[in-house]
């Protein structure tokens, strides 16, 4: 097990190193989408030869380019351990977190090259950096915070481990935007809330501590919300954290129907209903 911690991408990004599986090539080819809408008429692809080091991730290769070849490359990053959601990209035909994607794994998938694209269907700011404004606005629009209503107890509100487990998957979302980028309904309908915002609504509807369930349903079960989801499941496939947004959205539809049959007043309150 040899670790080359010299002038490698690892030093810039991930620290380099890791374990070696089989014999690897000493170079890999990286093809990166490049585009600056202010300067370029059209996007182009640039090719870089990256010296191979053990444990190298796709994020490391981007850093290698930035630090050693071409300082004009733009991309997002932060935690380099798959938890901050900054580095979601379209890599070799799949949505992946660049920091979690081992180059070795791509090679094991039978690819000889690494192809890196920004999240598809989002406006490009520069190269791999996309404008997530719509994603954030949608997230904000569903009032993603607890509305407890009852007076807070002196200590914690109780929640059984079983009830906590129900929301575990949804809480695990890292707001990376992959699902939003992958959903065909959000490609074409600019008003569509998208899988993330609706899944996050479900996260609260299914949280035993939240008291504004009907109001939340009323907020998302509309023509630009739940009814626009056609169970395409692209969101589920894209999610690096294995969240099942489709299940959450279907839950919203079901709960809305039963709330409607109950004649729940909260449904009609709109965003105001979420103020305590």
């Amino acid at each position, binding site marked *: 097990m040899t670790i080359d911690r010299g002038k490698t991408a690892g030093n810039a990004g991930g620290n380099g190193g890791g374990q070696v599986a089989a014999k690897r090539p000493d170079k890999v080819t990286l093809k990166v989408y490049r585009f600056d809408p202010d300067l370029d008429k059209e996007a182009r692809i640039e090719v870089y030869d990256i010296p191979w080091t053990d444990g190298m991730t796709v994020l490391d290769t981007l850093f290698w380019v930035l630090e050693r070849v071409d300082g004009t490359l733009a991309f997002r990053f932060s935690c*380099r351990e*798959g938890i901050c959601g900054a580095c979601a990209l379209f890599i070799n035909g799949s949505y992946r977190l660049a920091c979690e994607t081992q180059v070795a794994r791509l090679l094991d998938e039978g690819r000889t090259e690494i192809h890196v694209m920004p999240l598809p269907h989002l406006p490009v700011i520069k190269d791999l950096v996309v404008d997530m404004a719509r994603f954030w606005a949608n997230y904000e629009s569903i009032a993603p*915070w607890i509305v407890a209503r009852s007076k*807070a107890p002196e200590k*914690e509100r109780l929640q059984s481990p079983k009830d*906590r487990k129900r929301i*575990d998957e949804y809480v695990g979302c890292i707001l990376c935007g992959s699902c939003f980028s992958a959903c065909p309904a959000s490609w074409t309908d600019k008003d569509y809330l998208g899988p993330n915002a609706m899944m996050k609504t479900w996260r609260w509807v299914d949280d035993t501590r939240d008291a504004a369930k009907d109001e939340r349903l009323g907020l998302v079960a509309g023509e630009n919300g739940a009814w626009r989801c056609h169970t395409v499941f692209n969101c589920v496939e894209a999610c690096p954290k294995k969240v099942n947004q489709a299940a959450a959205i279907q839950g919203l539809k079901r709960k809305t129907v039963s709330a409607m049959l109950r004649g729940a007043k909260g449904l009609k309150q709109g965003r105001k209903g979420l103020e305590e």
Partner: protein
Amino acid sequence: MIFHEVLVVGGGLAGLRAAIEAHDLGSEVAVLSRVHPVRSHSVAAQGGINAALANHPASQDDTPEKHAFDTIKGSDYLADQDAVELLTSEAPTRIFEMEHWGCPFSRLDDGRIAQRPFGGAGYPRTCYAADKTGHALLHTMYEQTLRRGIKVYEEWQVVSLSVADGRCHGVVALDLRTGRLEAIGARAVIFGTGGGGRIYGHSTNNITNTGSGIAIAYMAGVPLKDMEFIQFHPTSLFGNNVLMTEGARGEGGYLRNRLGERFMEKYAPKAMELAPRDITARAIQTEINEGRGFPGGYVHLDLTHLGAAKILERLPAIRDIAINFTGADPITDPIPIQPGQHYFMGGIDTNADGASLVAGFYAAGECACVSVHGANRLGGNSLLETIVFGRLAGRHAGGYVKGQGGEAAGKGAEKALAKTMTETEKRVTWVLEAAGPEDPADLRDELRESMFANVGIFREEKALAVGLDKVRELRARYPKIGIRNRGRKYNLDWARNLELEGQILVAETIAAGALARKESRGSHFRRDYMDRDDASFLRHTVAHLTKDGPRLEYRPVTITKWPPQARTY
């Protein structure tokens, strides 16, 4: 020109908590962060957050006082005891507040917040959300920020702080998306800019933890405190140093060397794997140095005896990370780990109100040094610090702008800000046009390698001197750098190398402080002075920037109830 009453720099836990508090007290607040708030480093915290809730069956008689004692003993008596008492007595309230705000903590069977044992703690008092505690807390905090409609400048990087006549007037920041430099006026500025782990090689920190906030304050004349105390975490993944939380040992994980021995019995026979981080990290490094590690330099973190169910429930992210980066599945295989740089105990010199020596300038979280961690931080205390002192900084900054700061408003503020702007513009433009022969990436690599090697886990005079010389050499080479990207828009090359200067200056305070501290205390371990020396060094180091490097001063430690004792585990 942009103006805000209170400007918070940093979208991590400390920054957001400060913003919420100032907002709730009626101030007009904006948050500015160079990454979207949920991308802040706080999101990566894994193991948990301490509070003496006495929820765990084994911690029935835990109290904030006992929490304070553990913290002070852990700090090797360098922490200010009044601040620690404040920290631990506030802890339960703040945790319950986070819970009331919706934080999805893991639960005990009876529905209360679950707690796990952590290193150096007498009771299991670390509250957690599986092994994604920071993620749960930061997302909750961000939700509360959204609820209040607090304005966030996303992807803006502060490059300098405007200080004149002992008063802070705002900042100058770079809008990364346009490359425009803006002066932002504020009656009070709060820094929650996080640590500077990336000054070191082998760091567990996220890539944006460059210590730029600490450096900016230092360059504006704010002193730094206790910079030589750098925490090395015992268990980071071999190779890329992603953290393997202390929670893994809290849940019962073993450390084993190449011979399969649980070597901690030699170093901390009582606490074993749950000894404090400084002791455990040194134990591991000793094993490796003495040839009982695996080739390449690592030992094993063994969780295989915990069983699949416990690992999947309590440590799911750890498992994912281990499998992803090393191919080892903790359920069946031991995880290769080595110590890695983890935390800055030191930082911007503040008091327990978050106030610095400069009026209107506050700091909280990892970038600040109150000091509650002293020479060694206990795991789970820094998340706590962010929400306790973040809140207090917000509270006092809010009070300041309503009182004194409001009265002084305007007096020379615009002039001071304009001056800072002009100076900053010159510096920033210089970097953008820098075309010298030195590759800044080399400088950064050399700095990180040297700091880890020479100002690392084990220290001694000669190596420290080499380390300090190296920093000075880099400082001299910095003006000769050349960068590769002359565009303004989203120019990472520019933004990163703009900070490099500050990183070098901060590194200098670390090396100089370590060289001057001729004792071993907590994380600062000197082979040539193996003992703690309370007579000469039960003191905080305070570093002031001068033209020839840092000028060091010492300040007494506040002792309330717990006189220094020998520290054994």
